[in-house]
């Protein structure tokens, strides 16, 4: 089954895209989780769905070939990010309210565009649940560019992002431009969300950004370690999930997230066993 991924160009593209997404989603996810903004990915993914549905509708109606649904998905996601930032400014004391607003508008628009584009078809199905289906060279190139941009952003602003995540007040006193950085952070999040949807689907994007991080946080001591382990857990889940999805003909979102959840469960169990053994050992020493 691995041969299939190596031998067929389009499947190979899917594997490459999966590896890229398995890297950038948990990488950004670490910052999202520690800043307690896990719901942002959910909000943005539903806006992206509206964009994807809009793209499908336009394709159907005007046979616009210049823009694919992937492009309109990215565009909607970025616009959604800008609106979230704006709403957070308007509702300073209730910043979390921005997410349900943007999420429900996203779903509302999606329903409208899906209906206009003649209902649920296989494309929508794969956008919702993810797929192992072929990813074109153009799409792969776009995902590659997004990945390069995200990695460059994190590397350049790593210290400032870390400072802001840990203690925003201290960060601002030491000269971190919090507002500007937050603005770019949410834009980058929008890009990662729209890139990840190709693989895991709208409904499970946030899982790929949070589950590997949740697992990693149980075993790592430092922030850097948390990032490295999150990426490893993310990549393992993507590779196993894609192969299983292909083999069992199941949308990749399901298999990737279940693999990720199994890794989390296994890690929690091992931590528990380790704790019991340590207590037992201490008791024996004491006795």
């Amino acid at each position, binding site marked *: 089954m691995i041969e299939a991924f190596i031998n067929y160009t389009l499947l190979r593209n899917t594997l490459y895209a999966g590896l890229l997404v398995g890297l950038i989603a948990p990488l950004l996810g670490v910052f999202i989780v520690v800043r307690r903004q896990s719901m942002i990915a959910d909000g943005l993914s539903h806006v992206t769905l509206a964009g994807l549905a809009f793209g499908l509708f336009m394709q159907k109606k005007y046979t616009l070939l210049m823009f694919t649904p992937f492009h309109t998905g990215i565009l909607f996601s970025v616009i959604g990010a800008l609106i979230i930032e704006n709403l957070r400014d308007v509702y300073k004391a209730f910043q979390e309210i921005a997410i349900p607003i943007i999420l429900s508008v996203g779903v509302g628009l999606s329903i409208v565009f899906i209906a206009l584009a003649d209902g649920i078809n296989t494309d929508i199905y794969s956008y919702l649940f993810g797929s192992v289906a072929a990813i074109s060279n153009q799409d792969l190139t776009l995902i590659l560019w997004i990945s390069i941009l995200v990695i460059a952003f994190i590397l350049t602003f790593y210290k400032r992002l870390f400072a802001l995540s840990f*203690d925003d007040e201290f960060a601002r006193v*030491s000269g971190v431009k919090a507002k500007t950085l937050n603005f770019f952070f949410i834009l980058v999040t929008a890009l990662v969300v729209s890139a990840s949807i190709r693989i895991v689907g709208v409904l499970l994007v946030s899982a790929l950004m949070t589950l590997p991080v949740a697992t990693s946080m149980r075993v790592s001591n430092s922030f850097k370690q948390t990032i490295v382990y999150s990426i490893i857990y993310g990549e393992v889940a993507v590779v196993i999930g894609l192969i299983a999805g292909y083999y069992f003909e199941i949308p990749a979102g399901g298999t990737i997230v279940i693999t990720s959840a199994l890794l989390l469960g296994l890690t929690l169990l091992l931590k528990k066993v380790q704790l019991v053994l340590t207590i037992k050992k201490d008791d024996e020493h004491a006795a």
Partner: protein
Amino acid sequence: MTQPIISVRGVQHRYDRQTILKDIKFDIVEGAFVGLVGPNGSGKTTLIKLLLGIEKLQKGQITAFGHPIQKFKNKGRISYVSQKANSFNRGFPATVKEVVSIGIVSKENKQTKENLVYNALKQVNMESYIDRNIGDLSGGQQQRVFIARAIVSNPKLLILDEPTVGVDSENVEHFYRLLSKLNKELGITLVLVSHDIGAITTYVTDLLCLNKTIHYHGDPGDFENMPDEQRSKLYGHRIHTITHDH
């Protein structure tokens, strides 16, 4: 007379319809250990946020190191230990070393950074905890790490907003002694915000009583010797003499 490093003139501040600060005027001279006290809601936090430049100045003037606060480039000269440091997310996956590194403002190579972090931790007697997870430390230990983070770039002025909240009484004494040491040995000018007027008067060189406006600015000893009635009036809240046995 020494040139003041902070100069505040005619500062006024409002949130919506409520006046928080009115006619604020004072100087902070280099080397001072200023205690900024006042009851809850007296505007202490707002005032220091103005000094730190993270709250926009509405009316009046603040000069920091000779520059208007709006144009002041900090570059590590003013540092801060926030009240929030006590209630930070305890599950945050970071080591003491990573937390202290946040305070380094200049571009340094890896070795210099490590030395700076180690030396800052040494000042607060926390160097043996350098690789520990910040969440595993006690409240008092965490607060010392936050002091290390604040002093790692050799600030001239350190502002602390109620840093002893959540620190047990035994460690509070240690904490004040540590601040006194930073002031005397490293020459860092300190502004310590507190609502606990009794405990800090032993350590500070200047006392500032704030309740919307400055009611007292002067020697803490003179303030201590005033009758309860007068002190309560200046503090803006009822004060009873409490004897501290050290």
